């Protein structure tokens, strides 16, 4: 089974995430799309890990360790990011990203 299938699937999922970030204005949905992009990259890393393991490399599990660390960072990021979103909502009663333009002027 070609690795190309996994490459294409990861590209499609990543681009769906990019489209969501660009199209939606709800901060929580944008955050979820970032998670989707991270997972597309994780899937590709795991596919390449399997590919190198089949090719006979003994250190191919390093990619899976990398995925593990990406999950760790994503969990920490979600905790801080949702706290920020809750604070913004508390201050302005909205999670629309268009109200967060105070840095503009």
């Amino acid at each position: 089974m070609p690795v190309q299938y996994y490459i294409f699937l990861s590209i499609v999922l990543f681009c769906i995430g990019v489209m969501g970030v660009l199209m939606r204005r709800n901060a929580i949905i944008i955050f979820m799309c970032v998670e989707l992009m991270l997972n597309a990259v994780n899937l590709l890393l795991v596919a390449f890990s399997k590919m190198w393991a089949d090719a006979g490399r003994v250190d191919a599990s390093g990619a899976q360790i990398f995925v593990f660390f990406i999950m760790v960072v994503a969990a920490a990021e979600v905790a801080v990011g949702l706290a920020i979103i809750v604070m913004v909502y508390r201050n302005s009663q909205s999670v629309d990203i268009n109200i967060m333009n105070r840095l503009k002027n």
Partner: protein
Amino acid sequence: MGMSLQQIVFGVLSIISIISALGVILSKNPVTSVLCLIVTFFTIAGHYIMLNAQFLAVVHIIVYAGAIMVLFLFVIMLMNLNSEIEPQKRNWLKYAGAISGGALLLVLLGALREADVTPIQPGASDIGLISNLGKTLFNQYVVPFEVSSILFLSAMVGAVIIGKREA
């Protein structure tokens, strides 16, 4: 056409994951988006199992479906956002986002269509078992492991300080 069982499972999982990923960005209700994203995560866990990453599949379900998405659901329900309030003005921005995302998709697909990679063998390998990963993690990656624990501690402190009322 002779499709192996592996390819059939891959196709079904991929179709489900792409449709539910589209549901994340197209649904009006944020709670529906969260549920679609949970379905996507479960199909990605299925892909992990097919790629001999059993430990990662379990950790993925526990961390994402069990912790992160529950956190999202808590925040959405806490802020009472389950009715869509996104105003529909400036529709051209949506079209611009969709077009630029689609252009990125086309560029990446075209660039990697002819990528020279070796195929995946259908047989099982023990690369994703927890004993192998544990040995790798605690032999070669001890320092990043400890640094990530400090990262978690600082993220926890940061979330508490940010979330505190009238800091």
